[in-house]
């Protein structure tokens, strides 16, 4: 007899995949670094250097012992700027997913639970969103609203809920035929309670997986926006805007492009690998 809860089973199966576990370790490590950087700068001890101190005599220096990853066109330390960019990327990733999940779960639940005409209408709305070139839409909206952390998070969240909605709907369509749901309906529970108490907890795995896979999408979208000049604005350092500032000096200062881009890449990759590993663990054998 198996006495483990579904989440324990999921975790156990997740741990069997070495790649996923290592990716999770990378994410935890990055989160700790981001938290430590925030804490240190809040205490007034920016480490290793203040990311915004400019020194034109030190501009565009290649990586050295003093400046591990070199300096940019204003003589700012790239390593410090990258450390301070980490919390931004992670915040964008996590909060955007919160926005898109809340929309996607609500719409997906309603469509899947009600079925019929309601389902048809909501799914056509999803179809309409899928026809948009997403990044272009995000760029337009952020450019028009003005680039700020809140706007970026809300806009990316508002256009990226469709995948969640579709998956949650699919899950609801099967779950609403389950016997315990019929039982709850016969006992006269109202729809809201059935959705939140009986169906949603059983769709948790699917929601978790789409959430994890949504994080790197948001991080990459923010990096792209930053790169085009519509991300979180300077002087706040983000991985995208270090590259955007550095692109003018492309031929002289490769370190301004290579390192921040690598950070974006590794972070996105780690989230994708964790998400994929979770998806595999969640698949019913």
């Amino acid at each position, binding site marked *: 007899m198996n006495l483990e809860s579904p989440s324990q089973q999921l975790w156990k199966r997740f741990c069997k995949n070495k*790649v996923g576990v290592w990716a999770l370790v990378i994410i935890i490590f990055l989160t700790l670094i981001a938290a430590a950087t925030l804490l240190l700068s809040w205490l007034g001890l920016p480490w290793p250097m203040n990311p915004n101190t400019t020194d034109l005599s030190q501009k565009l220096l290649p990586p050295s012992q003093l400046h591990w990853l070199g300096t940019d066109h204003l003589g700012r330390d790239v390593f410090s700027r990258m450390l301070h960019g980490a919390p931004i990327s992670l915040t964008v990733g996590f909060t955007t997913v919160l926005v898109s999940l809340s929309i996607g779960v609500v719409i997906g639940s309603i469509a899947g639970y009600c079925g019929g005409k309601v389902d048809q209408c909501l799914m*056509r709305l999803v179809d309409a969103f899928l026809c948009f070139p997403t*990044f*272009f839409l995000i760029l337009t909206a952020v450019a028009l609203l003005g680039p700020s952390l809140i706007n970026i998070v809300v806009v990316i969240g508002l256009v990226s809920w469709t995948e969640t909605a579709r998956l949650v709907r699919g899950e609801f369509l099967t779950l609403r035929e389950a016997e315990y749901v019929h039982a709850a309906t016969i006992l006269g529970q109202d729809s809201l309670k059935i959705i939140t108490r009986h169906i949603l907890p059983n769709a948790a795995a699917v929601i978790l997986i789409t959430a994890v896979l949504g994080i790197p999408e948001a991080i990459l979208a923010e990096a792209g926006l930053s790169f085009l000049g519509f991300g979180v604005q300077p002087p706040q350092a983000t991985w995208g805007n270090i590259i955007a500032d550095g692109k003018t000096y492309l031929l002289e200062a490769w370190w301004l*492009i290579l390192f921040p*881009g690598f950070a974006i890449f590794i972070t996105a990759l780690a989230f994708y690998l964790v998400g*994929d590993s979770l998806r595999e663990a969640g698949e019913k054998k």
Partner: protein
Amino acid sequence: MLSFILRRLGLSIILLFLISFISFFIITLTPGSPYPWGEMNPKISPEVKAAFRKKFHLDLPLYQQYEMMLHDLFTGELRSMKDDLPVMKKITDRLPATLALNIMAILFSLSFGTLLGLYGALYRGNWKDMSLSFLSFLFIALPGFWISYLLVLTLVKYVGIPILGTQSYGIEFPNHLTLWLDRLWHLMLPAIVLSLAGIATQSRYLRSSMIETLRENYILTARAKGLSPTVVLYQHALRNSLRPLITGIGMLLPSLISGSVIIETIFAYPGMGQLGYQAVLERDYPILITLNMIVATMVLLGNLFSDLLYALVDPRVRLE
């Protein structure tokens, strides 16, 4: 069949209206002015401003603006707010370059994606499959602008090969063949970068669809009657798992257009992505809306086309 096509076209028209509605309101309801000279410029007299507002119907209530926009869109009278050129002309000027880039990227995504997915399914669970699926996540996670810059940096600085624009400048081409080869070369890098994510998603889809097909009884039958593994693989299994390849054609387009905004800017490639980016910078509403509509139409037609194609290659599918 015909009724299916008609019904889908009808649905597409409703969807297009919905899309025009969404893009119009996103673009017009956000704060900021469309004036090419800036909102508060004191040198512009109120009369000029009023004339501009009248010309682009900005003095009308929103629902009438939307009506006028739809009218102008379908009659082709929509003009750029920036330089007063007809929007259709600005877009059709860029169409050949965009089509070349996107078709190339779709070809890359489908061919390499199929290949990688096929091998992943064949060597399922083995280290080859693991490294292939790792590779596909690598492709998805690569920020397009980063890899483009690294390519530009290494090729231009360290190897000295021209790659920006649509063709090399300052060179006399002895004949048409060399000119077209040069253009093809300039198309290659942006197309490869653009297709990376597509290759990855295609290979993931094909891999899982292939794995499912390989479990079917008819594959077992085919093997049991002693057909060669190649015949079983290509004629029985692959043909039955082609769905992602076909649906991919329609699904790839929006992400390609999104990606091309950044890639075309970096490679100085004069396509619709670049036009869109400039329109965003200049708040050129008519161009933005038309671009959204054109992409949406392409996606809807692509989806319809892939559904029809799917019914054509798979007799189990009935269009109803």
